[in-house]
């Protein structure tokens, strides 16, 4: 498989699928229409977030048998994550929120974003499995990137503000 083909799959198949599944997850489960900004390929700077959900993606392209592995990360400012949790669970603005439940909600959102992309990629013969999500919280942290991966950072916006979607893939 040539590098050009791999780049084409990443930019024109995988990335649009992950952006669309993220948009759908937010519109359906958080009731927030969400739009994607300009994707930034192989970004030098790491965005800082207060709470991030990361999910591992691994598997193979069925058409060629070439293996791939990757990551999806959603990175939120702290206040936004709390507001998203309230919206998802239909809680009122003054209802008390358990921080652990916000962590769980961020992981579940990452899970849905990856799952939606997985289903649409199956349609074109690109199969991969997804891991259970892991969530990191802490003021102004960044999520480490896998070495040697093609990476794309996408700013996502809705009425609650801006967060980041980062997709990384590597063919083995």
């Amino acid at each position, binding site marked *: 498989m040539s590098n050009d083909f791999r780049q084409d799959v990443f930019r024109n198949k995988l990335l649009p699928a992950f952006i669309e599944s993220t948009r*759908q997850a937010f519109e359906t*489960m958080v009731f927030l229409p969400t739009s994607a900004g300009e994707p930034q390929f192989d970004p030098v700077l790491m965005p800082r977030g207060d709470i991030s959900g990361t999910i591992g993606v691994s598997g193979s392209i069925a058409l060629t048998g070439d293996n791939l592995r990757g990551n999806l990360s959603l990175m939120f400012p702290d206040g936004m994550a709390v507001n998203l949790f309230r919206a998802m669970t*239909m809680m009122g603005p003054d209802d008390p929120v358990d921080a652990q*439940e916000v962590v769980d909600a961020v992981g579940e959102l990452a899970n849905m974003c990856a*799952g*939606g992309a997985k*289903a649409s990629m199956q349609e074109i013969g690109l199969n991969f499995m997804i891991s259970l999500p892991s969530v990191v919280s802490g003021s102004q942290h960044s999520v480490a990137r896998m070495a040697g991966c093609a990476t794309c950072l996408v700013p996502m916006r809705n009425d609650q503000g801006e967060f980041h979607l980062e997709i990384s893939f590597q063919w083995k």
Partner: protein
Amino acid sequence: MADTAKRILVVDDSSTMRRILRATLNRVGYMDITEAGNGVEAFAKACEQTFDCVLTDWNMPEMDGLELTVRLRQKPEYKNVPIVMVTTEGGKQDVLEALTKGTTSYIVKPFTPEILKQKMDELFNR
């Protein structure tokens, strides 16, 4: 209105998803909801009492939703109980595998409250 006497077991390792499912089911009239955080816990609760419907996630630690479905189907009292997979695993191959292993129906996350209501209505022929 829904039959409020129906006992529903909601199985998901995400407390957020359990909360969403409970709130949505309550809104459409199903009030008797029991929660479990994985397949092991769900199976134990299902052995203590027979539920009228099981909504289960697929990917969970300890025991996943597919294994839970297979184990429940081995119990005579769960032979005909609706088991609904509520999962992000929405590909055709995944759906086929779940149905082959005994799942009655399927809801792909993300889902709207309307989709859940419609599914419950179908299951209980309302």
